[in-house]
Structures are given as structure tokens and as C-alpha cells.
């Protein structure tokens, strides 16, 4: 039962390892260049899955402030200011905006992973351009055929 709980509560991390190893296997063992590049993309998305899984909290929502969470607190501040102004007591309620960080997922990893997605599609584009160049040069996109052609002096 403990093993079942260890797998079910951290299933994202288990699947992340499986997907990353599938991508690594494809990068190493596949002969076709396009298959290698698909494997590379799967590898990259697996790492992004790992990072996004870190930022998830139980029962948390998307990291966007609602209108009343910002402006409602501001209105309270204004009313409190006028009521206390008669007594000559000036109090700052700027810290009264109640935002509980447990209600939101951690947005830091999301920002980092946005960059990682764009870098991933860039590397895929460069790799596919090299694949097209190889096909124009050697007439094949299979690694072993290209190596044979290079070894035999073309």
C-alpha cells in the first residue's frame, strides 16, 4: 500500500523518467535522422514536464490575481483612511492586501519553461534544416547509409 501511494502521488515524476528515457533511447539507437529529432523533442518535453510538476500545489489555482483581490483591498484601505483621518490617526494599510501564496501555483517555473519551449522548437528547426542539407548531399536521411557513403569516399 505504501508503494502504491509512493507511485500514485508522484506519478508525474515516474512518467517523466519513462518519457525521458524513451527520448534518450531514440536519440542514440534510431538510424533515421527525423526519428532522432522526434526523440530529442520528446526528451525536452519530458524535462519541461518535470519542472512544471515542481510548481504544482494541491488545490491551487492559476497564478492570476482576481479583480477583487487587488481593488477590493484597495477600497478597504481608502475607507479605513477616511475613518481614521477624523481621529487624527494615519495608518498605512498597504500590507493589508491578503494574497495567500498557497492558493496559487508557483509561476517561476512556468516562466523558465516558456523559454525552454522556444529553445526546443529552435533546435528542432536547426536539426531539420541540417537533415534536409544531408539529404541533398547524400540522397539519404539514414545514418548508417550516410556513414557508408562517407567511408567509401562518396
Amino acid at each position, binding site marked *: 500500500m505504501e508503494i502504491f501511494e509512493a507511485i*500514485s502521488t508522484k506519478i508525474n515524476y515516474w512518467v517523466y523518467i519513462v518519457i525521458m528515457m524513451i527520448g534518450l533511447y531514440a536519440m542514440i539507437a534510431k538510424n533515421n535522422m527525423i*526519428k532522432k529529432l*522526434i*526523440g530529442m523533442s520528446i526528451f525536452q*518535453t519530458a524535462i*519541461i*514536464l518535470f519542472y512544471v510538476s515542481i510548481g504544482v500545489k494541491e488545490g*491551487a489555482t492559476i497564478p492570476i490575481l482576481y479583480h477583487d483581490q487587488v481593488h477590493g483591498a484597495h477600497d478597504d484601505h481608502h475607507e479605513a483612511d477616511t475613518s481614521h483621518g477624523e481621529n487624527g490617526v494615519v495608518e498605512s494599510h498597504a500590507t493589508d492586501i491578503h494574497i495567500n501564496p498557497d492558493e496559487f501555483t508557483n509561476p517561476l517555473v512556468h516562466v523558465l519553461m516558456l523559454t525552454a*519551449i522556444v529553445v526546443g522548437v529552435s533546435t528542432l528547426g536547426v536539426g531539420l534544416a541540417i537533415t534536409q542539407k544531408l539529404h541533398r548531399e547524400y540522397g*539519404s536521411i539514414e545514418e548508417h547509409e550516410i556513414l557508408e557513403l562517407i567511408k567509401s569516399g562518396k
Partner: protein
Amino acid sequence: MIWIFDSIILIFLVVTAIISLQVKDLLSAAMIFGVYSFLMCLLWAGMAAVDVAFTEAAVGAGVSAVFLIATVLRTSRRSSD
């Protein structure tokens, strides 16, 4: 309930990753890789990372699939493995 949703998507993720690497037709591999990316996008929307989700839907699934299909059409469609 969201746990079941995540688990189903994660199982389909592994299945589509394996199929897209095993299928001999490269155009099918590109399309199944698009399915993989959209499943990843659904998973991130479920994990409250909506900005990552729609970037993945636009860039990861859309542009990557177009790049792969363009390369497959300009080179050869059959794969040896």
C-alpha cells in the same frame, strides 16, 4: 478526480511517444508526435500552467508538426527503423 484525468493523459503520453518512434511511416510519426504535444498541453492546463499550455499548443504542437511534415515531404517518407 483530477488524479484520474492526469493518470489517463500520462498513460496516453507514454503510448504516443512509443508509437511515434516505432511507426515506419515518417508522416504518421510526425502526426502522432503532434498528438503527443497536444496531450502534453492538456496535462499542463490541468496542472494550472496555462501560459505553458498555450505556448506548447501554438509552438510545440503547431510549428513543430509543420516543420516535421515539411522536412518529410522534402526528403523521404520511409524510415528503416
